[in-house]
């Protein structure tokens, strides 16, 4: 075990960074769950329960959310990296 694992409390900045990485880790899980929602939709044999246009809008909204969320988190990560290097960590 390297000593860094033994530090009980982190500086605010490092703490933020770790939570940021947690969010990045969580994002695909959120995406998978949201994209699993179509599994719950009723199979339409007779009359249309879910129209394809609605399905398209839903799936692409999830997509957009993930892209924007991912982009924003990547930006935050880059900024936090830059701050860490500035401080000479």
């Amino acid at each position, binding site marked *: 075990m390297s000593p860094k694992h033994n530090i009980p409390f982190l500086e605010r900045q490092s703490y933020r960074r770790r939570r940021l990485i947690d969010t990045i*880790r969580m994002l695909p899980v959120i995406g998978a769950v949201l*994209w*699993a929602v179509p599994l719950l939709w009723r199979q339409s044999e007779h009359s*249309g329960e*879910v*129209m*394809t246009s609605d399905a*398209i809008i839903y799936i692409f909204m999830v997509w957009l959310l993930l892209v924007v969320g991912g*982009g924003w988190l990547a930006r935050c990560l880059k900024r936090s990296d830059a701050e860490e290097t500035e401080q000479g960590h």
Partner: protein
Amino acid sequence: MGTLNILVGVCLIYVVFLFLIAFAAERAALEGKGGWLRSPLIYTLSLSIYCTAWTFYGAVGYAARSGLEYLTIYIGPSLVMIGWWWLLRKLVRIGRSQRITSIADLISSRYGKSNLLAVGVTVLAVIGTTPYIALQLQSVTVSFDVFSSSYGAELTEAAQGSNALLVAAGLTLFTIVFGTRNLDVNERHHGVVMAVAVEAVVKLFALLAVGIFVVWGLGGGVSETLARIDASEIGQWQMRGDRWATLIFLSGAAFLCLPRMFQVMVVENEAEDHLRTASWAFPAYLMIMSLFVVPIAVVGLDLMPAGSNPDFFVLTVPLATGNDALAMLSFLGGFSSATSMVIVAALALSTMVSNHIVMPIWLSTQSVGASVSGDVRHVVLLSRRISIGAVVFLGYLYFRLSGGGTALASIGLISFAGVAQFLPVLIGGIFWRGATRTGAFVGLTVGFVIWAYTLLLPSFGAGTLVSATMLAEGPMGLGWLRPQAFFGITGMDPLVHAVFWSILLNTMSFFIASLVGFPSPLERLQGAQFVNVFEHSSTPQSWAGSLAQTEDLMVMAQRIIGAREAQNLFEREAKRQGMSGLLPEPSPDFLQRLERELAGSVGAATAHAMIGQIVGGASVSVEDLMAVADETAQMMEYSSKLEAKSEEQARTARQLRQANEKLTLISEQKDSFLSQVSHELRTPMTSIRAFSEILRDSDRLSEDEKIKYSSIIHDEALRLTRLLDDLLDLSVLESGRVNLNMQSGSLKGILDHAVASALTGAGADKMRVMRNATSEDITLHTDLDRLSQVFINLIGNAQKYCDASAPNLRIDVGRSNGALVVDFIDNGRGIPKAEQAVIFEKFSRTGEQKVKGAGLGLAICREIMTRLEGAVEYLPGQGGAAFRVTLPEEVALAAQ
């Protein structure tokens, strides 16, 4: 036909343009100006080779047939990219730190650099990729046909074949020119990546253009198009949940495992940082690519006559509405998709084939081993080029043999399911240290056998490779082994069935075989390296480099990475080791670095084997490690021996120094004795001469005076005699010519006598003697007179030299280590430490000479005790002067 001619012209111009782009990129990289080549954007765009012609044309057809299911193919990779922190980050780090050249290289490296495993993965990758290449060739040839007036009529197979052959030849040429220009240690191909990035832009632009044209040009806006979608035959959500989930998983897995994806994602990665941008930019790319697929499909279904192939709506819809330019652009998009895929796939596969199959075979045919002179680079490059040609030709062959029918269209998912079999081994390898080579072998074999049995073979249709009866009743009537209904579970979608069972059993057998087996040391080291790549990024195993010939290594390295690079590398290493010249010491460190550099060109397993050939010992076995440990132990033993020896020498030196000091002291004593003895002899002699002269010459002496003078003469003569007696005694004792008069007597008696004699004549200052009568009750058998002489001397010394105001002497009798000891301890000042060493020497006298004596007493005592086989020594730290007389055990025992 006119359009076709223009098309050929545009196509040629486009190809020339691509060549120029690639060439410029190579050149810029060579001149070090290629900063823009290494931007995250280029990296993201290069990932788009995931979208092949199957995507470009096929997605629309897919949507027209099965609605929104096509989206799963893009959702899977999007999730993988969004989840980059979990997997891709680690994969890229491992790829960079271990200089991985392909997915086969990664798996073989992880599992102990096993070449057999690498060969297996390579073969499976080729099997999985060849139909895919065929699919690309087909799409290009068919898209050509779409423009020809004869489209719709049966195309002659010969014409189709020649078109495909032309395309295949062109792609092979491009890949060879830009894929094997140089043997880069990093295995990066700027030209290829740049061309792929440009093609990514072209195909995105083309598909967007068609999409916008369809939605706003033909559909009449967003809401109308949506309404049109709902009204079409795919207007209702008709999705089987199992297929939805399975396909998302499958596409995600394939995205990681496809050799071409691995090539652009891990091998061509310039900086880990790029992954961060690609993590959101690539999902965005996929999203835009799939955005207009459904509208195109729906409008195509509306617009085109029934029965027309929906796979080519992207081309036929603009053509049917008279937009030739748009159709041309769309064709270029499809062409880009197909060519970029073939180029990168051929490159990735050729690296694998050449590194893991051709090179090992070539090396083993070289009987002299890797150190023969001559350039091996051309062999590597040649084998790469031949491999590229072979891979593309294989695709072409498959295309011709399969007849280019619709059977090819379904090959995409089958191919995905094939390469997805690498996933358990890959994931297990980078997250689980317990994964072993045996496990990987078993898992991969099981996975591929099930994949082939349940998916690949039935895909050719019942009655071709798998008989209809076998499909319906199982092999030899074993119902539970039916290819599409394992264990009697019927009703599953064949693809879901195949993916489920192959991946499940693959993972299980991989896991169990890993648990049961025991990995080799190299595997375990590599496992730790891969799993904990973020904690340490050094290479695992060390070469025992003492046997390696640096020159041989140099010869070999020059042939693989080029003369100048090799020389630079060696020089750098030599400098790092602090040596002048070109040849560094073959330290394990250096060998590791060299192996890594070579691994970039020929793969880890081959590099390992090549260095192994020269260094000796193809791999580090437990025996090697033991030998190293043994050697170390021997070295340590030797050095500790040396240390002991030098300590002994130091001790001897110390003793010699002591002896020398003693000798110097003794010599001084001798000088002082000579003056002393002459003085001692002279003083009585002078008195004797003087008084005898008075007696002789003077007549008027009274009787009293005569008596007085003559008694002085007598006393002095006695003193002389005593001195001479002592000297004589000592010389007799020292020469060993003494006769011992052995007799028995009690210790108490001897001490009584000694005390009485020693203290005779002492006046008021007579010292008090303390004794313990019971302890003295011992009978001795020795020379009692001599022993008594020693005691008298010691007691006399105490009486003479003890300077306490109330002098006393304690005589203790006891036993120490079985010997009888008699201690004489007084309460005086004792003897200074400096003189303790010499008091037993002859003529030694302590301090200022208060008392007359020749300084022979203790010397005589010591000689006597030596004769009696005992000892007399000074006992320091007793508060005063203390002497210990030791008598041997036998002396006391014999008397009892």
